[in-house]
């Protein structure tokens, strides 16, 4: 109860630091989702719709990467971008951009895996029917996307959900720096470590509200355009 009261107090009127943290969180999650979907949706569709040698190996690889522990991804990205690492010159460590890099590494396999298994199962009858009608590859692909848009949409939301909830990788490469790279999850970690459990829980409640709001808005937009 104490947590709900604190959550309420943080939100009304909004706390300036909290707003900044929410801003960073949303920015990071938005770009992580965007980039991993730009890579993962086409690649996943390709893997799902084509049969080629080594496909089962690639699928196993993707399934393994889907379970990549976030701290491991964090460490890999950290070692790539640390001062002496191959990308050290870019000076990106402890920035939101490198947090996005780490998250893209974590989320892209998930997007590829979910998209390819969706295309493999659900698109088969669509492809067969469309090819049977003599449609071009382009028109067939468009139909598959149109027919499966609610599933593809939940892939995108899944990616966003992972991104906004993830803490291991972003705390390693982002450093949880106040006013700069602190996001909701790392703030919750920090408060928990300080022993302020109810305040941490208050932040958790707010994180849930944000996630719910994003989901609601997104599905509203899709419903508006879909209807079918």
């Amino acid at each position, binding site marked *: 109860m104490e947590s709900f009261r604190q959550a309420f107090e943080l939100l009304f009127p909004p706390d300036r630091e909290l707003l900044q943290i929410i801003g960073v969180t949303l920015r990071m999650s938005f770009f992580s989702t965007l980039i991993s979907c730009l890579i993962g949706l086409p690649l996943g569709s390709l893997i799902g719709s084509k049969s080629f040698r080594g496909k089962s190996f690639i699928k196993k690889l993707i399934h393994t990467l889907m379970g990549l522990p976030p701290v491991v991804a964090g460490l890999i990205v950290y070692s790539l971008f640390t001062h002496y690492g191959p990308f050290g010159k870019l000076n990106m460590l402890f920035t939101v951009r490198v947090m996005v890099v780490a998250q893209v590494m974590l989320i892209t396999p998930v997007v590829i895996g979910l998209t390819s298994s969706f295309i493999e199962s659900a698109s088969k*009858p669509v492809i*067969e029917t469309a090819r*049977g*009608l003599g449609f071009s590859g382009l028109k067939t692909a468009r139909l598959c996307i149109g*027919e499966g848009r609610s599933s593809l949409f939940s892939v995108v939301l899944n990616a966003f959900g992972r991104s906004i909830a993830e803490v291991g990788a972003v705390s390693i490469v982002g450093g949880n720096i106040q006013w700069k790279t602190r996001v909701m999850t790392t703030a919750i970690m920090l408060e928990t470590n300080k022993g302020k459990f109810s305040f941490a829980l208050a932040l958790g409640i707010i994180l849930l509200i944000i996630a719910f709001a994003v989901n609601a808005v997104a599905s509203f937009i899709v419903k508006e355009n879909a209807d079918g």
Partner: protein
Amino acid sequence: MVEIKNLKKIYGERTVLDIPGLEFRDGETAALAGANGSGKTTLLKILAGIIKGSEGGFHIPENVLYMPQSSYAFRGDTLRNITISGADRKEALELLEKLELSHLAGKKAKSLSGGELQRLSLCRVLSRKCDLLLLDEPTSACDAKGAELVIKAIKDYQRESGCTVIMSTHSPLLALNAADRLIILNGGKVETDGSPEETLANPETQWAKSFVAGWKI
């Protein structure tokens, strides 16, 4: 002309289709029969380019249409499910009329019954032009009246376009009423090949005899 030469389909160790040679004249309507798993769908899918044969090859005309064994309903209403093929509204409505689906024009295609959906799927295919029409069990979900409508639609389309039709079926009615030729497959091989009346009355092989005996008319 459709020309099949040494066509084989092999899954793992199993040869599910093995056709040394088979030809179809232009404008011919042929029915493919045979037990479940005898290779009817496999043959049609290979000709339609949905799957590849393992060995051998075939020659077919350029414009091919294929209606899968299970019908798919696209998003949206029944009418859109036809116009999606490029047909205009008027043509689509005429086809719906022909298959007695007009009253369902505005309904969501996904809500249609099995037999209604199968007739819709046929409308969609017949809204396009082709030289070779491949139909996988086009009456399997239809009642007697529906099957009659489907048969008439196929015959009319064939007459108007002069295309070659190859269709698989478990229905003697379809074979007798719509086809000039009946091919019975057994384990991926051609068991008999002849006129439907002749084959049904006087099956050439012992196996075909017992198969046809199971076909009650």
